[in-house]
């Protein structure tokens, strides 16, 4: 039994450096530095770091970030969602069905899709908190159900599993550009004129910059990270997220509305998946029944690389975003470096392992877990 003492002689002074270093995101920060060092050394001349190259891996990373933020908050609240990938395919298909097949105005197709998907998220959460079943099982069922609908509905209505014409249907719509447009076009034109970034020298786009704006996808990623981080660390609700995942019974006994928190996090995860899907169909102009395959695992991997504890109660949105960045940079970087694409998995496995070992070590220091 320890005895509290008036002086702190049993507490070693912890250096400032150590204190700033020992944080949940450390694994993600170290990984990011390692990955960038690696590619700067070995793939600098590959085009990966010119304007087009940077935009390429930034967009891919931003896609991972969008689903990782949802998965991160949900995981900290103690649950998983394996239906994220199916939800992405389903959401894209719903937009195509309402907006193209049924010819509704695009804004209404987008809004109804958000409503349907968030309702599915709420249903996931409701079943999990009501039955007490592991969310792993419940959302595995949702994974199959949603994927099934995503194939069945377009086949029944259109006799095909890819529906195009979304870009045309979205022409002149007020809501679609929030997901599908690019901003700061003028700035990039100016940068092109100044010679800071390259311009096309041939074809009908001669004189236009090779990168002609920031896609809204990236803006969504940044906004979601900022929102998730502030929600988690700076609000009352954030404390409830940690508490629900840390020990649901203890949280309940202290008056935290655990069920409500978990259901809301399932809904937020569904929201993120739908943002992803909407940006994707606006970019591609089509919805496919196989979209989003395995995205749930990529989201979970990014979150775990970012320092979150699989069993809940601990983690960081910034860390998850860095995990997603590592994921995107490695995937695209190996492509630029001309490395055999199958090696991507080897690389990813190694990073995952190292990040998790480092994260576990840091977490033990912080939480005194044994």
């Amino acid at each position, binding site marked *: *039994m320890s005895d509290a003492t008036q002086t702190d002689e049993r507490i070693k002074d912890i250096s400032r450096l150590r204190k700033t270093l020992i944080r949940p995101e450390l694994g993600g920060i170290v990984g990011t530095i390692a990955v960038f060092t690696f590619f700067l050394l070995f793939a600098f001349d590959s085009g990966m770091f010119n304007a087009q190259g940077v935009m390429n891996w930034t967009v891919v990373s931003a896609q991972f970030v969008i689903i990782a933020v949802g998965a991160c908050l949900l995981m900290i609240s103690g649950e998983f969602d394996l239906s994220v990938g199916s939800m992405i395919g389903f959401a894209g298909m719903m937009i195509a069905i309402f907006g193209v097949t049924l010819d509704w105005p695009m804004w209404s197709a987008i809004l109804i899709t958000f409503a349907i998907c968030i309702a599915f998220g709420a249903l996931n959460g409701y079943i999990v908190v009501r039955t007490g079943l592991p969310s792993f099982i419940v959302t595995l069922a949702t994974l199959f159900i949603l994927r099934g609908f995503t194939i069945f509905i377009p086949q029944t209505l259109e006799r095909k599993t890819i529906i195009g014409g979304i870009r045309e249907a979205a022409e002149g719509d007020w809501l679609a550009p929030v997901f599908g447009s690019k901003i700061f076009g003028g700035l990039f034109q100016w940068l092109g004129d100044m010679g800071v970034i390259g311009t096309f020298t041939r074809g009908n786009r001669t004189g236009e910059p090779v990168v002609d704006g920031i896609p809204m996808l990236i803006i969504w990623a940044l906004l979601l990270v900022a929102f998730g981080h502030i929600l988690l660390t700076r609000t*009352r609700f954030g*404390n409830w997220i940690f508490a629900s995942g840390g020990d649901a019974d203890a949280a309940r*006994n202290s008056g935290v*509305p655990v069920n409500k928190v978990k259901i809301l996090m399932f809904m937020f995860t569904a929201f993120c998946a739908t943002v992803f899907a909407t940006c994707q169909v606006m970019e591609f102009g089509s919805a496919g029944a196989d979209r989003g395959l395995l995205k749930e695992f990529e989201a979970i991997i990014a979150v775990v690389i970012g320092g979150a504890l699989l069993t809940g109660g601990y983690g960081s949105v910034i860390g998850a975003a860095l995990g997603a960045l590592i994921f995107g940079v490695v995937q695209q970087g190996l492509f630029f470096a001309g490395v055999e694409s199958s090696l991507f998995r080897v690389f990813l496995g190694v990073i995952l392992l190292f990040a998790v070992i480092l994260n576990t070590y840091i977490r033990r220091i912080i939480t005194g*877990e044994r």
Partner: protein
Amino acid sequence: MSEPIIRMKDIEKHFGSVIALAGVSVDVFAGECHCLLGDNGAGKSTFIKTMSGVHKPTKGEIIFEGKPLDFADPRDAIAAGIATVHQHLAMIPLMSVSRNFFMGNEPIKKVAGLRFFDHDYANRVTMEEMKKMGINLRGPDQAVGTLSGGERQTVAIARAVHFGAKVLILDEPTSALGVRQTSNVLATVDKVRKAGIGVVFITHNVRHAMAVGDRFTVLNRGQTLGTATRGEITPEELQDMMAGGQELATLEGSLGGTV
């Protein structure tokens, strides 16, 4: 005597076929320390959980400040002014002391109309309250997982006291504590009682009960064996009652009265 703050009448609680409580009545007055004693499995924790809104009683009535009450969940009980320190602590090891301290009662500061967690206030109050209880934290952001069992218990009690309850329920708060924290907790109970709060204090330790208790209720196998007032009963009699008046008597000789 005036009305009790809370009156529990013929509380029954069944878990499937297990009858954990078979009609227990206890009342608590403002400014008294009501000790609840009984052996393992007697139903003490189950009883106070019906009081704090964790369990719904199968049968029976709860009258709080003269009005019948029906708690849907712990939030209702907390809002009514019943604070509980559960036996298996309501502390989350992965979270910092100050996040735990304010869990469910987070202080709010408004910035540009938005409601944010006031970390500065939370950290300051946590450090102050811990110091009062004789625990020196490394910092308010230290995780509860790095504290000893007794220190965690102390944080939980400090938290319940801080939020100014009308009834404070402590489920075996001293069972994991060392000498110094035990005397701290008993002194706190005394202080809280003098401030007019009704305390329900569960313990196995007759000496701890005798040190602060005004009334003593002994539970056995889900039933009340009776309530005694301080001065009406000796520690030995209490001890015997807790053991259901059996066995312990025969052991008495060989243990030399040490239990």
